[in-house]
């Protein structure tokens, strides 16, 4: 299977794609509607297309002993150029992860990047993929209830103007959907270099009854936390410029009525 991809890619784009060929608009409006296919429901999501190594067409998930089929467990929302996915892939080689990105060209870049990495590192990077979608509208089409164990919202577009706050990817209403997709104990990671947005994301999470803050000790011990700044393209840029970052990392908890 991976041989196939290997020969097809060889000589052509085996080298990593270069970002400058994938220039894109600075920001997309998440309210604008779609021109891309969306699975009708999570069961329609084409796993063999995204993860052919784990789902060889026609066959069973041969990397999985248990009965229930493997599902995407990590979602990187607004994954940009995919740096985080690539790093996480090495850290959790058996966990399926999906990046969601609104911009077409950027999504294409990430696709090429993953294919090139798979081609030059046989057997690796098979657990990551990307879709072009508007996560704010279509998240439930990709993930069922309690399917995810981690969700990432790293350096999202800030939408400064008050009237545009509705476009922010973290809001009290959208957190309902994220809480739905996350399993109990699942973690939502948010980070930004914009202080006002950092405050906003934290207060949304604090106000939401289905999330609680993860303690500092736990964050120390979580290998993923370090990647938030070191592996994301945006995080690297902030670090280069000596900028500050603001993070809010919360856990999905059970709903308790007082």
């Amino acid at each position, binding site marked *: 299977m991976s041989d196939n991809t290997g020969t097809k890619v060889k000589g052509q784009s085996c080298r990593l794609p270069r*970002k*400058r060929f994938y*220039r*894109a*608009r*600075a*920001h*997309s*409006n998440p*309210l*604008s*509607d*779609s*021109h891309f*296919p*969306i699975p*009708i*429901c*999570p069961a*329609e999501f084409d796993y063999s297309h995204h993860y052919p190594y784990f789902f060889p067409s026609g066959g069973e998930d041969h990397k999985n002993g248990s009965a229930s089929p493997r599902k995407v467990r990590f979602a990187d929302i607004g994954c940009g*150029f995919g740096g985080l996915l690539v790093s996480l892939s090495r850290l959790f080689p058996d966990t399926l992860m999906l990046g969601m990105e609104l911009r*077409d*060209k950027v999504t294409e870049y990430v696709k090429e990047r993953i294919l090139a990495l798979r081609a030059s590192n046989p057997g690796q990077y098979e657990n990551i993929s990307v879709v072009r979608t508007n996560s*704010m*509208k279509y998240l*439930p*089409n990709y993930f*069922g*209830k309690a399917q995810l164990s981690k969700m990432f919202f790293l*350096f999202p577009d*800030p939408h*400064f103007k008050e*009237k*545009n706050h*509705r*476009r922010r990817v973290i809001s*009290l*209403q*959208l*957190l*309902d*959907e994220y*809480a*739905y997709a996350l399993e109990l104990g699942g973690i939502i990671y948010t980070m930004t*270099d*914009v202080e006002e947005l950092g405050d906003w994301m934290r207060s949304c999470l604090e106000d*939401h*009854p*289905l999330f609680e803050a993860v303690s500092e000790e736990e964050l120390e011990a979580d290998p993923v936390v370090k990647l938030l700044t070191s592996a994301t*393209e*945006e995080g690297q*840029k*902030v670090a280069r410029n000596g900028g500050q970052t603001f993070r809010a990392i919360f856990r999905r908890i059970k*709903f308790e*009525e*007082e």
Partner: protein
Amino acid sequence: MEETAEFVSNAGEDSASVAAVTMDVDNGLIEDDKSKDAEVAPALIAVHPFEKSVAVAVGFELRLFDLEGNCSVSLVDDSGGPSHSDAIRAIKFGANGRLFASAGDDKLVKIWATNPWHCIRTVSAEKRVSAVAISHNGHYVAFADKFGLVWLIGLEGDNAKQSNNDKKAVMILGHYCSIITRLEFSPDDRFIASADRDFKIRVTVFPKQSLKGAHEIQSFCLGHTDFVSCLAFAYPSGCANGYLLSGSGDSTVRLWDFISGVLLATCEVGAKVGSLEPNGTEDAQSPISDLCASSDGSIIAVALQYSNRVALLSCDFSNGNLSVAKVVTLEENYFPTSLGSSSLSKCLWMVMGASNLPMPGSAQLPTRLRIISGLRKDPSDYHCHDPIILEDNEVPGGQKLLSELQGSLDVTKEEAALAAAAAAVKASMRNMMIKKEYTLERREMRKKNRNDRKIK
């Protein structure tokens, strides 16, 4: 990070298409205000659960008839709030019939007591209102606005005291930027279901302290491939669980286990019933315009947008089977825009009409009311008992009721009026579809995904 070297904006890159679909919040993201003039609201009907009264809304007019007293009802407004001044988009009786709610494009939600009829509260919404629901215990009225947000008004206890009309409703949940077409409480008030124009149905746990928000999503019922136009809960006797029924622009009615979100059955009503396209050709894709179900789900009536046929469905809940049991064909130009029934009778009330109707020489907006009687709890009875379309003189309340609820419909000009209403309704429905800029893509997607409709 707002502007970065890498993210150079490039005029060549799909900026044209992006511009084309960039519908700003303030310009009415989902709703193009410019097209508002052309927009027509279908006439609506609601029947008191014990058939004490019946309400018809068309444009900003709310018409009521008292079936017990056999007289028209003049509406008293004690709420101190304004009256409806623009198209009413949703009307609903509470489960015990004591409350009634009306809401619409004038951003008003009016809550009425029905015995005697008077408005007890007028709440101003921020945006135009697209759906309302009353909790079965009568403690709450929920409504949805054009931004996809659902708001709650408390009527009991502390909330009732703040009965002044400026008291704003509380937002409890939201569909991200999709117009909500229907809201329904489950009969036990444990859940609230909301359906939208993006084929999504969300079932949310309705908490005890619901004014603090409804954040826990029980399920999404996903399977429709076009807008969802109607919803109904059904709790069949002898079944431990309830079910949800939904109708859609994809011409199907679907049956859901709403606890898990699992699709149990799909009935291709359009294909089974057949319907007329505006150009006179048969179209299997006619959207479902309304669905009306008895609380136990034994009677399910379905109306299609371009069809003068009403489908009566038969549902085997435990085996997940939904099929057309009987088709009732109405007169040629009759396309019901809304269906209603009480919890008592075996009658289906239908109305056809629309706001903004060009009706020269008529002060009131005409609507046409029809009743089908003889619905059966056991659909196999239809083998020997046909449902009957009542003649005007057989309608409860007779001519009095008709002249009250149909407005200035002159039966001698009936043909012309009906044709005009039908045309307006079609236009409005077509608007509803083309307002979405991606209808073409969606059509493609629908074609591609036709297999999914075979899912059982």
